């Protein structure tokens, strides 16, 4: 890495370290002298810190220092009581993470039950999901996607790092077709019974 300026390396360390929030590559670049290769610098800092007790961690488009994951057993004890997420919230989060972008109705289809008030709210409050636009479909519903804060919280570099992603893909479980659609047509499952839950509508 002959193109790495040691001064720039130290600056990147200090800049990311001093920031109160994780920083994007663009934000870091804006604070470095013109022409600095931020990607290469970040990679160099990351590998320099990899064996240490503090690591440089990427989450989506943002970078921050954090304690090494393998030290968790020694650090965990001084944490405040963890806020428990409901089962519905975790399930909803997983469904959005693996299928995004996803409308509320599609989440309800996947779970076969209406989302209770507060489930999306809880995920929003954690800053783990955000509205990512609107579906070009009747009613133009909001599509939900996960955030970089979600990636950071669960120590994921990107969505590609989601657990068992390949396995689920290979099993066809991330396809949206071929499921019973209970909610995505707007009617919360109240219809002629012999039609099946939402008539088992085909595509």
């Amino acid at each position: 890495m002959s193109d790495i300026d040691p001064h720039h390396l130290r600056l990147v360390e200090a800049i990311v370290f001093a920031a109160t929030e994780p920083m994007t590559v663009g934000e870091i670049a804006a604070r470095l002298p013109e022409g600095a290769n931020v990607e290469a610098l970040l990679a160099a800092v990351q590998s320099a810190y990899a064996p240490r007790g503090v690591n440089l961690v990427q989450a989506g488009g943002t970078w921050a220092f954090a304690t090494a994951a393998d030290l968790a057993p020694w650090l965990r004890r001084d944490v405040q009581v963890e806020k428990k997420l409901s089962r519905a919230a975790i399930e909803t989060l997983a469904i959005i993470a693996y299928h995004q972008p996803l409308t509320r109705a599609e989440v309800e289809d996947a779970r076969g039950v209406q989302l209770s008030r507060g489930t999306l709210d809880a995920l929003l409050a954690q800053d783990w999901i955000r509205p990512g636009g609107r579906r070009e479909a009747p009613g133009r519903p909001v599509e939900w996607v996960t955030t970089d804060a979600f990636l950071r919280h669960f120590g994921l570099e990107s969505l590609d790092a989601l657990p068992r992603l390949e396995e689920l893909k290979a099993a066809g479980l991330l396809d949206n077709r071929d499921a019973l659609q209970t909610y995505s047509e707007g009617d919360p499952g109240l219809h002629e019974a012999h039609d099946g839950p939402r008539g088992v509508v085909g595509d």
Partner: protein
Amino acid sequence: MSGAAEPGPAAEDPEVSDPEVSDPEASPRDFVVDLEGFEGPLDLLLTLAREQKVDLTQISIVRLAEQYLDFVAAVRHADLELAAEYLVMAAWLAYLKSRLLLPQAGPADEPSPEDLAARLAFQLRRLEAMREAGADLLRRPRLGIDVFARGRPEPIEANTETVFHASLYDLLRAYGRWHARNREAPVLQVAPSVLDSVEKALERLRRGLGRSPGWESLSRYLPPAILGRFDGDSLVARSGIASTFAAALELVREGEVALRQTSPFGPIFLRPVHRDGVPR
């Protein structure tokens, strides 16, 4: 949704302890708790499917439908409330089961029962996969629990710039609150007055003053709405005249203008004045 009145206390109902459905020792009260533990028909189906102890890809949908229908029958037998969605699923499963067992040509445009069964199986597999994925996520080293960000912000003294922080959640929550507040306690909406106020007249006068150095007619400063179409009877016009006149007097009192009227009911003129009383 619950069945017709059942005689006697439900606890004595032998159906309730159907081993197919729940622990033989369980009382109807436990049963309620059991049902409330389920998050909808798919969740219940998934739990029942696990009792078959086979891979979900190998599951017998007919057998599953029977288990589900037995469960629902037992719940209703115990005269317990069952949400509509469970009943809808029950009716559909009964229909699916009958079509699977008695193959007959359905309408050409309808999916075959095997197809429907496959879709249900897919949905169960997907839900189970998402559940496991959620559990996997929770097992990862989590920020603030297993892994920690820097604990102490950097104390650097410098040219500070204030940056306000607010999240999308804060924004949406604020809007939701505001909206709810407005709906719950409607605020008395007073339509903006069409009448001229002294404040507005003062503003007009102050804006216009000094544009012309000498005497000019006070009527120039009437509200634009009534300028040119002078209608003494209109309330709007009268308020405009009154407020403009009052504003002019106010400016005289503050020593900003001088007023002149050469005859009773004649036109009124004004002109800006310096602080020391000399025309500017």
